[in-house]
């Protein structure tokens, strides 16, 4: 994918230079300055965390949890090993930003993790990388080697007594392995299945030790915050929604790709950056935060700004920042069938409501999409959703229900039409 707009993470990256991802280039554009600053100026752990809190950086993995706060949960004087884990599993349909980070600016992530390790007193980190990417994985390994050779990573970093080891780990190709506790299980060599929380990873994480997990983009934003200050980062965005954020725009736009823009940018501006709708068609709906986020119709979407609070207020989620744009030809029944199939296929199967419910949801939507819907199906879908959401071990159960709820809320009539007529009103259009 291509990165069209650059913000904090891709700041200064010259994509035309084939060596843009290398350590040498990264250092030229100010890379590792934040780390040097911390070590040279002996900035304390508390100061780093305070800076993170000021920045109002919210986790870029989906839940949007404030990163500084998460870092402050780590026990400081724990006697054993603690771990730092980066989540580059990136399995949420529509999301393709983390891959670009490890390919095009891997050192930003590495530096961010080293700083995280410093701030939380952690000496070992892992980056869990999506199991179905290979060249990107190789690229990240090469970048790690560069950082080790340059003394940024390993024992006695830059001659200080701070040590941090960072390892890449190739994942196993299941969406659920992106859920943080399933990721930890998988990293331990077990089947990737979420753990029941509490205990949370900060007290019982990898190998049962205190662990902090953040998304790739979250870590890659850290060097900027330390170098330029949390306040400056915050001001890039809007209060409670600091910084710039990567949006992976896909669907019926002229120029799909990654756009790193300030949080709070109007959706209309983003759409324009993307060259507008493909073929001059009308915007019908947008899934604003990855497949798990409820769909929003065009009129609501056009009123939104791209940030956590605005999208939440509109009844959806900013999630991972995957923006799926749909034009007027899209049949919402087919779209939901595809989404429901995904969750049915990706449920880990551990807990009853999700294991059994996702298959039920999919089968009903599939029937409707194939002209075999029944009038009672829509209420049944809603009721099944109510029996799944909030009753499962991890949020995949919720994620399977949100698309259903969104579709039924905003596009119920399309489903009713299909049930009544046995075929889509968009059959001719698409």
């Amino acid at each position, binding site marked *: 994918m291509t990165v069209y707009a650059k913000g904090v993470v891709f700041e200064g990256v010259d994509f035309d230079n084939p060596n843009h991802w290398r350590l040498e280039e990264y250092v030229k554009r100010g890379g590792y300055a934040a780390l040097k600053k911390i070590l040279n100026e002996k900035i304390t752990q508390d100061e780093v965390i305070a800076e993170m809190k000021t920045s109002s950086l919210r986790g870029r993995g989906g839940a949007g949890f404030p990163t500084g706060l998460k870092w402050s949960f780590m026990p400081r004087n724990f006697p054993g090993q603690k771990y730092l884990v980066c989540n580059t599993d990136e399995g949420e349909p529509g999301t393709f930003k983390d891959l670009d980070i490890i390919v095009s600016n891997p050192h930003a992530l590495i530096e961010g993790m080293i700083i995280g390790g410093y701030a939380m007193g952690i000496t070992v980190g892992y980056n869990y990388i999506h199991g179905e990417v290979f060249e990107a994985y190789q690229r990240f390994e090469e970048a790690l080697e560069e950082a080790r050779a340059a003394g940024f990573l390993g024992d006695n970093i830059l001659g200080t007594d701070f040590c941090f080891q960072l390892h890449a780990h190739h994942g196993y190709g*299941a969406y*659920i392995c992106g859920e943080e506790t399933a990721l930890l299980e998988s990293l331990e060599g077990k*089947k990737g299945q979420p753990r*029941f929380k*509490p205990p949370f990873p900060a007290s019982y994480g990898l190998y049962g030790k205190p662990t902090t997990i953040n998304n790739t983009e979250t870590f890659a934003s850290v060097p900027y915050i330390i170098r330029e200050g949390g306040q400056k980062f915050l001001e890039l965005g809007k209060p409670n929604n600091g910084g710039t954020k990567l949006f992976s725009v896909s669907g019926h736009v002229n120029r799909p790709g990654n756009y790193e823009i300030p949080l709070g940018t109007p959706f209309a501006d983003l759409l324009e950056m993307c060259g507008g709708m493909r073929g001059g068609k009308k915007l019908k709906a947008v899934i604003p935060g990855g497949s798990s986020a409820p769909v929003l119709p065009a009129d609501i979407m056009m009123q939104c700004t791209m940030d956590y609070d605005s999208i939440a207020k509109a009844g959806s989620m900013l999630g991972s920042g995957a923006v799926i744009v749909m034009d007027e030809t899209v049949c919402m029944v087919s779209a939901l069938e595809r989404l429901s199939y995904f969750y*049915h*296929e*990706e*449920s*880990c*199967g*551990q*807990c*009853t*409501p*999700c*294991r*059994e*419910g*996702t*298959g*039920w949801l999919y*089968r*009903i939507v599939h*029937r409707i999409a194939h002209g075999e819907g029944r009038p009672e199906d829509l209420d*049944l879908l809603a009721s099944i959703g*109510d*029996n799944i959401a*909030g*009753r*499962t*071990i991890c949020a995949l159960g919720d994620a399977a229900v949100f698309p259903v709820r969104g579709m039924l809320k905003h596009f119920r009539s399309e489903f009713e039409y299909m049930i009544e007529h046995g075929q889509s009103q968009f059959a001719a259009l698409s």
Partner: protein
Amino acid sequence: MLEIEIDGKKLTVPSGSTVMDAANSIGVHIPHFCYHKKLSIAANCRMCLVQVEKAPKPLPACATPVTDGMKVFTHSDQAVTAQKGVMEFLLINHPLDCPICDQGGECQLQDLAVGYGQSGSRYQEEKRVVANKDLGPLISTDMTRCIHCSRCVRFTEEIAGYQELGMANRGEFTEVLPFIGKTVNSEISGNVIDLCPVGALTSKPFRYSARTWELSRRKSVSPHDGLGANLVVQVKNHKVMRVLPLENEAINECWLADRDRFSYEALNSEERITKPMIKQGGVWQEADWQTALEFVANGLKGVIAEHGRDAVAAVATPHSTVEELFLLRKLMSGLGVDAVETRLRAADFSLKTAGATWLGQSIADLAASDAVLVIGSTLRKEQPLLAQRLRQSVKKGMQLAVINPHGDDLLTAKAAELVVRPDQLVEGVVQVLRALAEVKGIALQPNIENGSGDIPAEARAVAAVLAGKEKAAVLLGNIAQQHPRYAEIYAAAAAIAEATGAKLGVMSEAANSVGAQLVGAETGGDVFAKPRQAYFMLNAEAEFDVQNGAQALAAVQKAKLVVALSSFSSCALEHADVILPVSPFSETSGTFVNMEGRAQSFNGVVRPLGETRPAWKVLRVLGNVLGFAGFDYTTSEEIRDEALAGEIGPRLSNALAAPVAVKAQAASGLVRLGEVSIYQADMLSRRAPSLQKTADAAVAAQLRANAATLAKLGLAAGDRARAEQAGGVAELAVAVDAGLADDVIRVSANHPLTRALAGHVAAITVAKA
């Protein structure tokens, strides 16, 4: 302590409790499937969702920690809606054909569906079908019924110690599977049948033979190992149909070993003998009881008259009850016969202790030890549930060390391990003792010879495990007890215990080994070494229950009179002169004293088969026929009260009555390690067809040695080998056992294939067959 309110009831619970614990403590039932008090918390079924004040969503009671002031509602609208929703999900892919399911009537899903299910299903889509799995001869599968609670998976990993089942695939395609091409081989595998809340895992031997409501449930005690697991025996039409655990936290907790659970098959075996039989002129004839008893009485009197009372010996296995052994002893004294022996598997009878040897403490106390040293034991196979308990203790921090002639996996961490040749077990124990003496700066007792040479690092490591522990134990297993130098092993172990303040314990081989000592049924010694004219055998089979079975068989074959009191005809028919059919444990009342000295009495659960009679009644009437006084008991309780008069505790003691000289010996050449395999140990397990089909039974038919030894002998795995001992020959398949020392040949003892061989620990020759 935390305060919590459940459905309006206030209570306090220790911190760390879950809502489920709290509810259980006041008898509030929260529906559940995946939760089990002995297993880790999985929180996957979601059946236990309850409403918690201030929580936006219902929470799983089994996994939610109690917080102070928490208010829980288990039957509020929110809770019940959630529970019903989960029940609906559980049922959509579950077959609704309970009438053809073997679990019908004892299914937790069926039970809860009555309370939480709907009458009709909203699920109109296709239902899931899951292929069945081959889990071996004991567990039958109907995997379409699985509700994925993962109890079975967690059991194998957490309790049995080795994950033999797993959950493969994702989502609704998740399936419980064994490893590819493997079955479930744990010696305590049958517990997954009890744990499975639905009919996915059921008992293979019991399958489709009865409905739970047709069965009456009767309490009993397992007649196998020295633990004395408590049983519920299920009976239909005077036939034992199935055996389940009776929960007793102090003994078997809620578990049973497969031997306890499945050996009942033998009770209904074709080999049961149901009428007295007398052999006359080489021909077996049925007889009535009066004739048979008179035949026995006259026969015994005749032998004594002709050859003297030393010409008679009585032998019984320690699987016999206190009452039986007491009367046997009394009957023999009436005849003037001294020799009554139950230590049939022993090779060294010289040990003298101040009382009956026992575990030295209660099972629960043992489990709370900081360190345990096990000497000479194939622990998992000798004492499956005790091994399980120690495994749980290791998880809580106990250190386990072993001195063994093999390296068998205990499926738990060994803190230290010393592997020796079986004929060097004494020397191994002495090495640990020397290491301890060195650390503690003490001298060895004068009767213990301070062997020479360096102390191996492994022995030092074993010593380090025990040294300085507050609560330690030294335990002797079957290999030690059956060893030709048992007294020396015992004395050296006692010295270790003394040097470390550890408790010395003997893990009783059989259900009533302690009881046998209490009634003095250990006066014969090796009664087969010098053949007698008459043998009176109670529940004992010469070639299977005596260490040197070949020698015993030869002795009984030469004897003038062999009286067999047995439930089974097969062996007795070959060499006895008269067979008196006596009841197995299920058809008689009686008492076993377990390894911790606990007397457990039980009643017969079915009436005796045919003309079979409880052995205590047979012995009593025999006393009457012989005209002896004091044989007028009307109940087994009278016998028990006389046999165990007074408290048991003071009569238990592992203290040596006299010092034993421990002499270092050198050893070389091929040596046999003979153990009685788990399903060969007693008359019942030997005849349980399903147990005989297990992996453990298959291993017992092999000759094993380490790779170097096999190479030296020109053998390879899969070959057939010919083993010879004292003229007896066994032909066996060869397998590698990397855990053995060089020159050790592991051949199980008292097995149909090996019964011609001699001592368990003795020289052996091996050649390619």
